């Protein structure tokens, strides 16, 4: 095995292209090293991307934020601007693993792993985040909701890797939230999860919304019906009921060691409901400047 430490995106892309299938990206390593340890993968080459320009930076861009692919969960959590603008995304990212994992794990890695239970992904999809992909032909952008194509499968082609995640600008009267269910209080993989992002109209009703659900299907799903259920409402009971129904309908989970179909379907609706209420409270607070 070889350990490579490219210093430019072109160099990284070149190494990946030349070693297709045999090379693996090392960002935080919190999934990669586990997979290597279990014998699940035996890469011939490790490409450590932490030394690329800007890869560990959080920068303001077009009113939004660009999060480098090697920014750790803890680092993101320390960024006041990110917390204020996208609290749901930040809290989702902070739920990945323990404090120790937080010191290393990244949103980009969480995304590239392609798992349906990845904590940061529903929040990113709800936020309409966009992944920046570097490759042999230069950079391209891909909405996070289109990035994962199946369990463990992504749109990344030969020589491509994610270099950053862009969290777009948002109006003042808006916010987001993410909740997951795990059997313990920490250290588990989500059994079901929900990310909700809302924007309020001047009258306090929901003008637009995005609801994404995790761990209830082969990949994280953006549920338009769930968003439609709450748009135009102030989360009154009928809207909440419709949201829960839409989420339950969109869930197509499996029975496994972590949960049953019945449990996941029920709980994902509960989580969406609760996350929507948190997002609503935050958005109202942002709109009025007062805690609700």
């Amino acid at each position, binding site marked *: *095995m*070889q*350990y490579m*430490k490219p210093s430019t995106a072109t160099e990284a892309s070149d190494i990946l292209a030349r070693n297709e299938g045999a090379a693996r990206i*090392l960002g935080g*390593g*919190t999934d990669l*090293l*586990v997979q*290597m*340890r*279990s014998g699940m993968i035996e890469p011939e080459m*490790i490409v*450590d991307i*932490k030394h690329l320009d800007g890869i560990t930076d959080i920068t303001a861009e077009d009113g939004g934020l660009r999060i480098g692919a090697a920014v*750790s969960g*803890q680092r993101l959590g320390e960024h006041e601007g990110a917390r204020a603008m996208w609290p749901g995304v930040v809290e989702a990212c902070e739920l990945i*693993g*323990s*404090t*120790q*994992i*937080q*010191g*290393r794990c990244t949103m980009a890695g969480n995304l590239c792993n392609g798992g349906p239970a990845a904590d940061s992904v529903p929040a990113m999809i709800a936020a309409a985040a966009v992944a920046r992909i570097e490759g042999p032909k230069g950079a391209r952008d891909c909405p996070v909701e289109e990035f994962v194509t199946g369990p463990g499968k992504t749109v990344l082609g030969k020589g491509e890797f994610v270099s950053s995640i862009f969290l777009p600008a948002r109006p003042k009267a808006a916010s987001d939230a993410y909740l997951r269910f795990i059997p313990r*209080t*920490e*250290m588990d993989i989500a059994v079901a999860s929900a990310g909700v992002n809302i924007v309020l109209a001047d009258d306090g009703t929901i003008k637009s919304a995005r609801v994404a659900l995790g761990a209830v299907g082969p990949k994280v799903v953006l549920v338009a019906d769930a968003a439609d259920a709450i748009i135009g409402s102030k989360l009154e009971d009928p809207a909440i009921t419709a949201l829960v129904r839409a989420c339950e309908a969109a869930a197509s989970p499996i029975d496994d060691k972590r949960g049953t179909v019945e449990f996941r379907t029920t709980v994902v609706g509960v989580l969406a409901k609760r996350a929507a209420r948190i997002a609503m409270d935050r958005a109202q607070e942002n709109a009025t400047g007062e805690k609700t």
Partner: protein
Amino acid sequence: MKNIHVSTTLNGDDAEFVCAPEETLLDALRNRLGLSGAKEGCGTGDCGACTVEMDGRLVCSCLVLGAEAQGAQIKTVEGMAIGEALHPLQQAFIDHAALQCGICTPGILVAAKNLLERNPDPTDTEIRYWLAGNLCRCTGYDKIIKAVQIAAADMRGA
């Protein structure tokens, strides 16, 4: 397979070692640098027994490659005491029986020290969530949380 030469800073001292590309920082610490305070309980980042500090952040050293330590500042449990003087956390753990078998203790001490450097006056809940990645099977955590609080109070007073 070609070994990699790594220059790093270990508990404040310059240190060098060679390791295989796939070798973890934990293996390098234990087998190349002779520091066996960090333990391997799982090898998958689930138990925290291998916790060390890398550039000011806690990491599971089983999930870091040795090669990544190049140019980094690594701190382990072996660097906590200054000469004969134990760190207040170490003293509190002894004085208040915060360990039974002691296998999780090095990881917990390193993690708790990092917490108190960020937050000198944490609540019990904050300590419990901060240490959620450090499994202890002996104590039920009760005396660990109390010892961290006692050390924190001691350090705030000092």
